């Protein structure tokens, strides 16, 4: 590995991290430490207050250093400063770290051993990459000399993770370990956030080092590009052309994605809407970026978005895209997305997302919060106040009417418990303030649709990867991030099985996590697609013959509050009791196995072809819808 890191290019040179000014020395600078101790000290310096991981031979030096650090640096209340939370499976640790990061905005940290420990971490790393979640994953690796020898518990982590993560470091030179760790945090949290994997051979963990207390790796290309986007200021001409186009619009709409949450721009968005009066629909990932109970909020759009959001997209004549990427679950047919929009604007921190799927008429690459604030300033300085002028009065009335006529709805008269009613009952109590995590499937979509989300970081769901098994460990991680918050995992009987071992993690750590299992005896979402596209042949998705007794299972794992709800009349009382319980609680609800997720914009279809089901009003009750419905069953 090259030691010479001088960069020839003078312009790039300037972007090298500046050493901390003298006098600002780390109190432990020049102290002798092992590589493992260096790792733990950098974690502490980075503000890490919990980590998740499973031990093994190749990571033991780090685990021992964590143990010693905790023993010698207790918090005032005697608790450990760096608790290491042990899951049942490394995938659980990865999703706990991701849940922690999603709920807090801080970097989640997971520490695992080599080989199988590292490969079990691949799914959460990919999941976090796809949803832009900041994580640092430290993997033990076989000794430097053994790399490439098919050693015991060796896996090509840098190759595997390199294809999945924002970045991966294999530290073969112990002298750069400290700078590498610090750089990993910098990369994870900067720009478009993502997971960074640091693969540390065991002998590097055991090397005697001198702690520097400062310094990062030179990554001049990345830093130069980052500085460019971060300093990019929307100029007057850019603002002017934005507002000129807006001035032509009568029905403008904001389409806001997870980027609003990642960049901490939710408040700026609220202020922007207060000033200019553009209604807001978010993506699934953007839930909470704008208070869903606001009169101008359209909840979320896309494949299973609300009908009124999707119709508003059909009707709008101007789209302002904020930190969203026209993903195929939103713009299945990019050409038909927002077909009446004469102008599409896009703001993103990632240049590669501009125009990637859909050509836009105006864009700005830069920080969302600052961009929104800049547009507000410009608007204020130039007397632009369309909302106060009543320019959108008709559009706002139209939006209100769409929300009224095409509201979410379901079969209220059924004898069977409807999943939507379960979520509504919880929401009546939590009122948009609970942190909700989910598995993947119908229950995930119902949770997205029927809960209110009043603030960012309350909706934790595997959006892009759609990873079953996410919900339970993510809830655990979130509870560590927000110890006083109500954290509820809305899970499916298929999804929860995937990381069922983490039930015990909940009780081991005494977390007051609430788990709601919407049991439809099978892979409901798969069945829904099989009904639609495979003439109802339920290949492997029906689990009515499965024998698991979830209540016994959770009791075996130490849940003292565990109940199965089968009678509709008991719904409200049971949920009130369940939520009021102080400790971990598990509620299994036997729901109507035929309950579907509506609306649905089928793959390859436009919003105009959206199916709304039997209980949500559709605009095209006529021709199109009926043909589709006949096909369905």
């Amino acid at each position, binding site marked *: 590995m090259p030691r*010479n890191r001088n960069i*020839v290019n003078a312009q790039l040179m300037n972007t090298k991290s500046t050493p901390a000014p003298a006098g600002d020395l780390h109190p432990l600078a020049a102290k002798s430490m092992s590589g493992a101790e260096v790792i733990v000290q950098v974690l502490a310096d980075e503000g890490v207050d919990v980590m998740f991981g499973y031990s093994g031979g190749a990571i033991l030096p780090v685990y021992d250093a964590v143990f010693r650090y905790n023993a010698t640096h207790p918090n005032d209340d005697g608790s450990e400063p760096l608790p290491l939370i042990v899951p049942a499976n490394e995938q659980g640790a990865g999703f706990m770290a991701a849940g922690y990061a999603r709920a807090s905005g801080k970097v989640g940290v997971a520490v695992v051993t080599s080989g199988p420990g590292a490969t079990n971490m691949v799914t959460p790393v990919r999941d976090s990459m796809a949803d832009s979640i900041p994580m640092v994953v430290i993997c033990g690796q076989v000794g430097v000399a053994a790399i490439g020898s098919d050693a015991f518990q060796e896996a090509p982590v*840098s*190759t595997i993770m390199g*294809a999945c993560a924002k970045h991966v470091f*294999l530290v073969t030179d112990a002298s750069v370990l400290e700078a590498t760790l610090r750089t990993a945090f910098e*990369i994870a949290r900067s720009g478009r956030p993502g997971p960074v994997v640091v693969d540390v051979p065991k002998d590097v963990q055991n090397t005697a080092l001198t702690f520097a207390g400062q310094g990062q790796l030179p990554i001049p*290309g990345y830093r130069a*590009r980052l500085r460019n986007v971060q300093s990019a200021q929307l100029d007057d001409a850019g603002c002017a052309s934005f507002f000129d186009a807006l001035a032509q619009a009568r029905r403008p709409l904001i389409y806001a994605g997870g980027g609003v949450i990642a960049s901490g721009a939710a408040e700026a968005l609220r202020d922007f809407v207060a000033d200019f009066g553009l209604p807001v629909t978010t993506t699934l990932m953007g839930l909470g970026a704008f208070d869903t109970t606001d009169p101008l909020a359209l909840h979320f759009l896309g494949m299973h978005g609300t009908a009124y959001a999707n119709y508003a997209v059909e009707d709008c004549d101007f789209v302002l895209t904020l930190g969203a990427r026209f993903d195929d679950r939103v713009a299945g047919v990019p050409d038909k997305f927002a077909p009446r929009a004469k102008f599409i604007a896009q703001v993103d921190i990632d240049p*590669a997302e501009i125009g990637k799927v859909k050509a836009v008429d105006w864009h700005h690459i830069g920080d969302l919060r600052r961009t929104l604030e800049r547009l507000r300033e410009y608007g204020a300085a130039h007397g632009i106040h369309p909302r106060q002028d009543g320019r959108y009065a008709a559009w706002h009335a139209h939006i209100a009417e769409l929300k009224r006529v095409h509201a979410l709805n379901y079969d209220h008269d059924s004898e069977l418990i409807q999943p939507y009613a379960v979520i509504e009952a919880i929401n009546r109590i939590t009122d948009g303030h609970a942190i909700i995590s989910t598995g993947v499937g119908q229950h995930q979509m119902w949770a997205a649709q029927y809960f209110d989300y009043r603030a960012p970081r309350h909706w934790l769901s595997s959006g892009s990867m759609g990873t079953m098994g996410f919900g339970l460990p993510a809830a655990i991680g979130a509870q560590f991030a927000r110890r006083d918050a109500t954290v509820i995992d809305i899970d499916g009987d298929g999804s929860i099985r995937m990381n069922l071992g983490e039930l015990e993690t909940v009780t081991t750590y005494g977390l007051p996590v609430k788990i709601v299992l919407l049991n439809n005896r099978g892979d409901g979402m798969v069945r829904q697609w099989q009904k639609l596209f495979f003439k109802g042949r339920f290949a492997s998705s029906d689990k009515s013959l499965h024998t698991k007794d979830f209540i016994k299972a959770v009791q075996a794992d130490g849940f003292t509050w565990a109940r199965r709800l089968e009678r509709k009349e008991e719904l409200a009382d049971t949920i009130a009791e369940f939520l009021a319980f102080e400790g971990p609680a598990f509620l299994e609800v036997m729901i109507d196995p035929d309950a579907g997720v509506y609306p649905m914009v089928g793959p390859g279809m436009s919003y105009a072809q959206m199916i709304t089901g039997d209980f949500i009003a559709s605009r095209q009750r006529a021709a199109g819808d009926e043909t589709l419905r006949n096909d369905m069953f």
Partner: protein
Amino acid sequence: MNAVTQHTLTIMLQNETGALVRVAGLFASRSYNIDSLNVAATADPAISKLVLSIRGDDQAVVQIVRQTRKLIDVLEVSHQATAD
């Protein structure tokens, strides 16, 4: 639809473990075929220079160039269309 043409990308890359694999992997995972690839040392031993040629329409090439710029150890990417 844009016409498919030959494009030459020149990538200055930090000489880190796995950096070359990440560049090659990026092209493979986004289904771009690399027609030719030449890796050379530079005066600075910490930097290598990759010259690779691919075929694609302009929009596809713009996208892969942007994706390449997201790789941490990439210093610079320059791009030339070579009509054939």
